[in-house]
């Protein structure tokens, strides 16, 4: 099954936490102050994080998901 998910390009992530704060599902966390990590199980691919990211380093991609989560 194909679903839309947020994907973080870690090379430009500044770990500012804007995405984490704006995510309506609480799916994003900042890993040890280094970069943001998306919880694929919670992400619904709404794209809010991609829109607010100041470094423009989050993109929404379609990915193949095995289970129906």
């Amino acid at each position: 099954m194909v679903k839309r998910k947020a994907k973080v390009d870690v090379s430009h992530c500044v770990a500012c936490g804007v995405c984490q704060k704006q995510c309506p599902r609480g799916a994003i966390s900042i890993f040890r102050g280094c970069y943001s990590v998306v919880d694929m199980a919670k992400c619904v691919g709404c794209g809010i994080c991609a829109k607010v990211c100041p470094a423009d380093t989050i993109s929404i991609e379609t990915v193949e998901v095995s289970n129906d989560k």
Partner: protein
Amino acid sequence: MTNSNNVKIKKPKRKKSWMDYLYIWSIIYFALGFFNILFAWLGLIDFILPLIVAIFAGNKYFCNNLCGRGQLFWFLGNKLKLSRKKKAPKFLSSNWFRYGFLAFFLTMFANMVFQTYLVFSGTDSLRKAIKLFWTFKVPWKWAYNGSIFPDWVAKFGFGFYSLMLTSTLIGLIVMLLFKERTWCSFCPMGTMTQGICKLKAKRKE
């Protein structure tokens, strides 16, 4: 808010905490410094606290939750809709620019400390002015009429206030032109704390 299929997504209301109002601190800081430059010293909190959090906790809790400046840009840009919300040039968040800007910033900070030292040693006298963008002198004489402290204390205040105001103005400009918190992508404090966190995370592995 819409996603690319233009389906309206309602954002659930998150419970507000006191930490969501820290943009008021940013405004208070500049207001206090307008009336008395000695208050500029309070800005050191914004300098030292993120470093302490990064060094001891190994995260960017300050940037993520406590940064009044980031919240101010968000408030003005998003809530008051002053931001164009356009993608910023990619180089602003590239490592060479971020670390270059950090180096420039630290050099200017060192220069400011040296200017303070000149007043401390009596080589230079106190001038009641702030310097914007490291170039433009703005008279600021109403903010200081002598105090129980020696002149160098005030000199540091003028220098530090200049630094804080200049960086906020740069942040405001990129907020207007690009996204709300574009400043965060090259903020020297953010670069420094992230650098520390990366070192700490590497050591943990």
